[in-house]
């Protein structure tokens, strides 16, 4: 049966609300409107306004309220419409949710789940096209995940809710309409990266919206005789070092794909870790494919030029093989 990413997100929330009365969904237009990305359509009717709460446009306020509610026995799923609006709530996420456990000497855990859409590709211009996942991945005290597949879109919510610490889930806007043939959706995990394609010559590391581009690049490169392994990070914090280093140690080459801007990106962090942990296994410098360092422009051809694309990944990989190409 074909299942879309959007349906998987929706069903995960619905099942969470069904399975645990402590779960509440809150956010802007999650109720009557059905969610900006229609991920909560019909849930207000099914669970009522106490559990599916439309909030005012007060990101700082309702994220803080979610944190307080989590401290006091609820398991809130807080939807912040998009990552750019989450900047208004960054104080509560960084200064409260992430720090509370530590600064209270371990007395308070904050079991909140914060979901938001991220990424570019829909001509939404500079204020609605960010990939700020690396900022969140920088913060100790929270976990950050990025489901890139329909399976994970469903499967990551349950373990995130079961986790006693804050979990931030990034859903790439380009993924909501993607679909896969799936019989049954089940919980996955939020601890490990996944090897999405096995290969021997080079490791392509990607996450979220860039995974499919990486897999496309791998297909194309196989025609050129380059056998790519593709690692889906899945969990952006804490990073799964073992899977990354194991793969790079095997293939001796790595290309990191990240829709965030290059400077200070997750790609930068992963590159550093590969250097620290697999330097003597490298047969070529680590390459990166990131967004150009420009606010994302509106015009379609310029937006495409700014973002990581399959063709750029292919070129980056080929660049790691000298005379062989």
């Amino acid at each position: 049966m074909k299942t879309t990413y959007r349906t998987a997100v929706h069903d995960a929330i619905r099942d969470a609300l069904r399975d645990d009365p402590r779960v509440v969904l809150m956010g802007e237009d999650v109720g009557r409107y059905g969610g900006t990305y229609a991920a909560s359509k019909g849930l207000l009717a099914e669970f009522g306004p106490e559990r599916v709460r439309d909030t005012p446009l007060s990101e700082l306020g309702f994220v803080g309220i979610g944190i307080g509610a989590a401290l006091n026995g609820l398991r809130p799923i807080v939807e912040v419409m998009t990552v750019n609006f989450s900047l208004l709530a960054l104080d509560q996420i960084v200064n409260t949710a992430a720090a509370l456990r530590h600064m209270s000497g371990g007395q308070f855990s904050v079991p909140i789940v914060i979901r938001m859409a991220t990424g570019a590709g829909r001509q939404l211009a500079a204020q609605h096209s960010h990939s700020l996942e690396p900022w969140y991945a920088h913060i100790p005290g929270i976990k950050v995940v990025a489901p890139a597949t329909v399976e994970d879109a469903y499967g990551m919510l349950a373990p995130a809710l079961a986790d006693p610490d804050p979990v931030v889930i990034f859903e790439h806007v380009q993924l909501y309409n993607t679909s896969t043939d799936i019989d049954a959706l089940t919980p996955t995990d939020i601890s490990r990266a996944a090897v999405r394609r096995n290969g021997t010559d080079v490791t392509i590391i990607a996450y979220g919206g860039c995974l499919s581009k990486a897999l496309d690049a791998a297909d194309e490169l196989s025609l050129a005789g380059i056998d790519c392994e593709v690692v889906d990070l899945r969990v952006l914090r804490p990073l799964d070092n073992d899977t990354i280093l194991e793969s790079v140690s095997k293939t001796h080459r790595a290309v990191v794909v990240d829709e965030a801007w290059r400077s200070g990106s997750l790609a930068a962090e992963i590159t550093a870790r590969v250097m620290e942990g697999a330097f003597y296994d490298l047969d070529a410098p680590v390459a990166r494919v990131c967004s150009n360092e420009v606010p994302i422009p509106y015009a379609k051809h310029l937006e495409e030029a700014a973002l990581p694309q399959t063709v750029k990944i292919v070129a980056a990989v080929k660049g790691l093989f000298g005379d062989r190409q």
Partner: protein
Amino acid sequence: MTDTKLAHELLSDMVRVRRMEEKCAELYSAAKIRGFLHLYVGEEAVAAGSLRALADDDAVVATYREHAHALLRGIPMASIMAEMFGKQEGCSRGRGGSMHLFDASRRFYGGNAIVAGGLPLAVGIALADARLQQKRVTACYFGDGAVAEGAFHESLNMAALWNLPVLFCCENNLYAMGTALERAQSQTDLTVKAASYRVPTLAVDGMDVEACHTAAQQGVDHVRDTGGPFFIEFRTYRFRAHSMFDPELYRDKAEVEQWRERDPIRLFSEQCRHDGTLTDADLRDIENSADAEIEAAVAFAEAGTWEAAEDLERDVLTPVDRRAAVGEATPEPAR
């Protein structure tokens, strides 16, 4: 004032806070306490009067000027002092310091050092109480500076919109650090701001401990009866600098002296003497007992131990063996 016992307790609470704060200033000068240190001297009547109105299972969210609230909520002074020394016997294991005193067992959700950062938190705690059908009050303390933050607006709006049981306690000491209220607010009557969200309000003399107590009791009763929010503006003054490193260039010494005339401890002890509920011997007993408590607390903090640096990264995420305990004791909400 006829209730001698209550009078003695209110006075004792204020004296304990005053003497503890003065000791903290001394210990800071001696470099035993480091970091930022914000003292409550002058504002004692607010915490002493208002916290007494709360029940044991109510919740408290406080600011970075929260030593008084922690102490009067029942956290042992020794544990507070050890925290300020950075010792692992402290109420936050030495990870928090002066600005981050916490006690889960007393539902004391801590000193929050982001101005207005505690307001959404308090509304969320109240939301959970409402949803879990607990008739509990969450008292949220903040200063006049917090009123300028967006979080104030968002939190009062949502608390009123969703009718949540929060007692908003604004400790208006007239200065946001060094910025006077009239230099920061177009409307200096803060109850008018709160009322605009259709939250019932009260303004009270924050130097009068009995008035603070009465107002808080009224507010708590309202919150418990209606399940909705209430706002109290305590008009008070801090006698000491904002923090230890503040040359106080922004206010006149004469102004400080004028307010010192209305020292809440002096006002109340004079009144009690006048009423005949307090003798010199009573006052001496109260002071001696506070001094003894402080001496013991300092000795405890001095004798405390430093956490091993190898444990540096503990308490960032919940350890696996304690995960099951998170939220375990909470009652089932109605479906």
